[in-house]
């Protein structure tokens, strides 16, 4: 289709996302970074894919989590693979840490945004290098932050308030996981695109581990659900 500003031979432009992942939550804890993400890939309002891995390792020191268009995340993974490959090829004892990866991705996202062809993702990058913990996010338009706790999408509205109240500098691993699960449970109740199958990744100076997928216990036995129409006769 021809328009004044573009022609048929134009590059592909992501105008709408198709298969999307929902929130990512990340927190710093005593020994490093913890990140949680569910394994859902939604196709609009359909929950189409339920084993999508949205947390991935980047080099020796970093972990990336992505929400948004899954195919764009796969593209980003290819960019990162190449980046780490070249970093390793120097073979000189220097290596890119989470701060460098975060800034590299910020440049990528911002440059794509300037071309009106964004990678439709919100990314969370965390890691530990030389004892320094790092946690940051980049959005599809290149807006980037660094903080002690980070979330994307609905997580910003439902998880961050919990984290602002309950996050501490010296959380142990168990406390951190419990805190993330509390946030993820909240998202499960309130976010339509959340699925009850999640992974939690931990990265410390020693290395990275991603948990096996598991489910959260939920509670639906609220009194208000017993007789839902008691205040509104005739409704259902």
């Amino acid at each position, binding site marked *: 289709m021809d328009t004044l500003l573009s022609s048929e031979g134009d590059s592909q432009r992501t105008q709408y996302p198709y298969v999307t992942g929902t929130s990512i939550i990340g927190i710093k804890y005593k020994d490093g970074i913890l990140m949680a993400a569910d394994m859902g890939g939604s196709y609009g309002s359909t929950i189409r894919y339920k084993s999508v891995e949205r947390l991935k390792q980047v080099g020796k020191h970093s972990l990336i989590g992505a929400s948004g268009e899954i195919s764009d995340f796969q593209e980003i993974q290819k960019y990162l693979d190449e980046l780490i490959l070249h970093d390793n090829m120097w073979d000189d*004892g*220097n290596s890119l840490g989470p701060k*460098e990866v975060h800034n*590299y991705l910020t*440049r990528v996202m911002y440059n794509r945004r300037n071309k009106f062809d964004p990678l439709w993702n919100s990314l969370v990058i965390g890691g530990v290098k*030389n004892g320094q913990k790092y946690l940051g996010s980049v959005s599809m338009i290149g807006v980037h932050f660094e903080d002690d706790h980070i979330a994307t999408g609905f997580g910003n509205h439902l998880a961050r308030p919990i984290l602002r109240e309950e996050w501490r500098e010296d959380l142990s691993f168990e406390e951190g996981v419990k805190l993330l699960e509390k946030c993820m449970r909240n998202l499960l109740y309130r976010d339509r695109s959340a699925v009850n199958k999640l992974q939690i990744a931990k990265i410390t100076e020693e290395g990275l581990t991603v948990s096996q997928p598991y489910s959260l216990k939920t509670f639906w036995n609220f009194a208000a659900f017993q007789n839902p129409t008691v205040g509104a006769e005739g409704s259902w």
Partner: protein
Amino acid sequence: MFRNQYDTDVTTWSPAGRLFQVEYAMEAVKQGSAAIGLRSKTHVVLACVNKANSELSSHQRKIFKVDDHIGVAIAGLTADGRVLSRYMRSECINYGYTYESPLPVGRLVVQLADKAQVCTQRSWKRPYGVGLLVAGLDESGAHLYYNCPSGNYFEYQAFAIGSRSQAAKTYLERKFEKFPESSRDDLVKDALFAIRETLQGEKLTSSVCTIAVVGVGEAFNILDQETVQALINEFEISGEEAPTNESAAEQAGGDADSAPDQSGAAAEGEAAPMDI
């Protein structure tokens, strides 16, 4: 070296397996005025001899800041050195922009060496006629590298290039074992002594030399003339024999007193280090 039938262009090998144009480029480095570098675990000091063409002209700049954590001293064709410094600055800035992190000096040095190598393998180019002493900091500590017109690079504890650099090298060879643990000020003192060696009796003043330092917690900076002159006076070395540790002798210049009691004596007449 004499002229021969294999030295017209850089892409001609001699039967003995030499590239004469590259070797001539390294001669240009040897003819330039001296530059020296030395490092400890946490600091690197660069020093060079500034010669002005005449009393009317200014001194040539031979030390360049490349980034907060990297600096370079050159010997040879200063114009080539300036161009390479500009390349180095550009690489550092681009890396910093993309990664918000300082470019590791080891990687910059390899890029520089690869750039120099290209000029040894194109018939329409000539080698850069400048040797570079690159001083920098990265996660693994302080580093000093020497980049050669041939495209080779080496890491050093201490090194000297340019004319009469052999005298400085001999001095550095005597002292280099204690450099890793030296303080910043001791390194600067040793740099001044090494420069004095290349002057062969001329008076060492701050108008003849330039000193620059980079270290952990100290961005690359060139010391100003007053500071250097104060250091020279303080170490009382303007004409004197180098005392091994502190406690210097008189102030009077020119006289070669034999003060070295401890490590002084045995150094002369040792095997010359590899002159690249």
